[in-house]
């Protein structure tokens, strides 16, 4: 196991200790932090390892939220709903991936973006099943108190994050990860030397979908009310990419740090600039990317100084 993987696990353990320090609101932020990290790490599998700029994160997040939401309304237990959401997303993404991933570069980006729109419209128009634009109610759990519930969803999301991290580490250290790196560097050449690129890419796409979908399922149970424009929000596709860029493309530790940093920035800016927070956040992100083009992971004092002088 590499040092960066150990550091990532330590970081996760630190996150798990959050309930010792904060109340319900800190737990809400912690839950969102875990959710963002799941999205960013999942995106990293297809975007960072294989170099395919996927905008489909929101599609699978919404898919998971609605799958779990509908099943929860049918009275299934939460864990089962989340498992079903994850497995169906894995299969659907792998099958779709086999078709979509034949496109490259910008073409793939646009195709994956349209996946969000297609799923959103499907949910919007299946009014009988999903409530359409009126949204979907998810029954409140037992009245276990504010803190207990916040704790429950925080750890549910944290466990998903842990599984995502383990999946990403396993992929990075395996033949699959090597294959994906080859695809990123030169897909034609990898195919020439006998790598089944379609299979590898499909698996990567499936893996990048299944944990996002599971996170969507937990999210739906957590907020109790979802509607299509919220869970199929295109920002859920864009944010993971920004986080991965901020943290350091391809490095799981960097991506996870990027997700936490992004949430921290978003929260601080949102609190302090009631009217112009979006502008301030954008500016900070641009500055960060300008000074740290390789993300947080490239943060070394010497480098930093050189870069400042360079700019």
């Amino acid at each position, binding site marked *: 196991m590499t*040092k*960066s993987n*150990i*550091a990532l696990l*330590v*970081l996760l353990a*630190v*996150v798990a200790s*959050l309930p010792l*320090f*904060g*109340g*319900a*609101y*800190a*737990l*809400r*932020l*912690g839950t*969102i*932090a875990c959710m963002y990290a799941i999205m960013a790490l999942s995106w990293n599998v297809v975007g960072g390892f294989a170099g395919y700029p996927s905008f489909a994160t929101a599609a699978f997040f919404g898919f998971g939220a609605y799958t779990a939401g509908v099943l929860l309304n049918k009275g299934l237990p939460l864990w089962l709903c989340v498992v079903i959401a994850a497995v169906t997303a894995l299969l659907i993404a792998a099958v779709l991936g086999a078709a979509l991933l034949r496109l490259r570069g910008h073409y793939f980006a646009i195709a994956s973006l349209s996946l969000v729109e297609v799923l959103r*419209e499907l949910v*919007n*128009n299946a009014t009988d099943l999903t409530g*359409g*634009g*009126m*949204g979907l*109610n998810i029954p*409140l759990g037992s009245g276990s108190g*504010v803190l207990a*519930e916040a704790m429950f969803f925080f750890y549910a999301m944290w466990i998903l994050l842990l599984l995502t991290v383990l999946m990403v580490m396993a992929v990075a250290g395996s033949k699959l990860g090597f294959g994906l790196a080859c695809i990123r560097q030169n897909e034609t050449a990898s195919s020439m030397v006998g790598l089944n690129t379609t299979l590898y890419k499909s698996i990567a796409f499936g893996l990048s979908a299944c944990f996002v979908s599971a996170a969507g399922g937990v999210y739906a149970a957590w*907020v*109790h*009310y979802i*509607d*299509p*424009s*919220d869970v199929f*929000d295109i920002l859920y596709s864009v944010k993971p990419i920004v986080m991965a860029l901020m943290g350091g493309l391809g490095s799981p*530790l960097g991506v996870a*740090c990027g997700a*936490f*940093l992004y*949430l*921290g*920035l978003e*929260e*601080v800016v*949102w*609190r302090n600039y*009631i*009217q112009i*927070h*979006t502008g301030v956040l954008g500016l900070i992100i641009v500055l960060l990317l300008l000074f740290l083009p390789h993300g*947080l*992971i490239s*943060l*070394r*004092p010497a480098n930093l100084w050189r870069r400042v002088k360079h700019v």
Partner: protein
Amino acid sequence: MIFMFQSLAAMEKYSMNKSRVARYARLAAPLWAAAVLCGAQTSNASAEDVIRFGAPLPITGPLAPEAIKQQQGYDLWAEEANKAGGISVGGKKYKVEIVYADYQSNTPRAVQATEQMISQDNVNFMFGAFGSGAAKAASTVSEKYKVPTLAATASSVQVYDQGYKYLFGTFTPNDTLTTPLTQIIKAKVPEVKKVAILARNDLFPLAIAQEMEKSAKANGFDLVYFEKYAIGTLDHSATLSQIKSLAPQWIFVTGYINDLLLIRKQMVDQEMKAPIVTMIAGPAYQEFIESGGKTAENITSASWWHPAERYEGKDIFGSTENFVKLFKAKYKSEPDYGQASAALCGALFQMAIEKAGSLDRDKVRDELAKLDVVTFFGPVRFGANGQINSLDPPVFQIQGAKPVVLFPEAIKQGDLKVGVN
């Protein structure tokens, strides 16, 4: 953030040559510190003699114009209440303070903002988020914390179908808008047979369109068209030409003000004419009449309140006339139902708190549930589900660039005119 960078710099001095692990640890520690700081940062303890009300609003994003209206209503109430010395609780006067947060027209953010206000800003009571969808989502949080919440702009019964105890709303159910409208048109314009409905696929607009469908069928109209358009649709020409080919006598469109102005303009482009065109919920706003100009003429609509109403209230504003006067003095414009409902929510909280004689959330909640008073907005009484059930919402029509009330009889200002060109 400054703290974060400082600590980064400080730590770097000490560990220039440490291993990679140290470097990563150094990276993670300040991030963590920042996260904990954000979460644990407690707001200033609320001052002794202030009552804090939380108001999450969509200050940025597509719903921003609605947020301004709500804010005007809340601010007007807070100003009036403070001018009178504040809210008296058990003989002591408390000043009103309203805490705003922007949820960016994004429902999950509204939920987050609500929790932030309750757990961090220590607000005593909450106003609901804008519109039915966000109000419903955010109400799950205030319900968990048992904070009484007054939703100023949530009308769909689906918002109140969750059995919540702490959520109250000042808009009557959607069918109270569509039923009188349908009956007026049935009585006054018997030649209207075919109805076409076009609805924005969103909680309130779709719910009211479904109510309209029910009212139309119940009154023997022939529903020839019922479609939804997606949120953010800019080109309605295909749907409109389809409607035109069906030649309905009554076109019923739902959405928010920007959607409705756009659709109206594209109807004019296609030279669509019909005896009756109804739009909900834009025409009640002065902006609709101004932007629509001639094309707004004879459009019918219904809303929950109208400045032409004449109620003698027992709330801080007293009569409807007085409310309109105060509003005009402060904002130099005519109030509409959004602003009035927001101000009403404040006034209702004030009455409930004064009656309870305490800031105890449960006591105030019980007083809200028991309220049965006349206000400048009309009589207020909440049903068992928390939604108001005592109002007769007015039906009106734009005539000569002015909204003219057609119903209820008590405040009627004119008769229905047929023909929208």
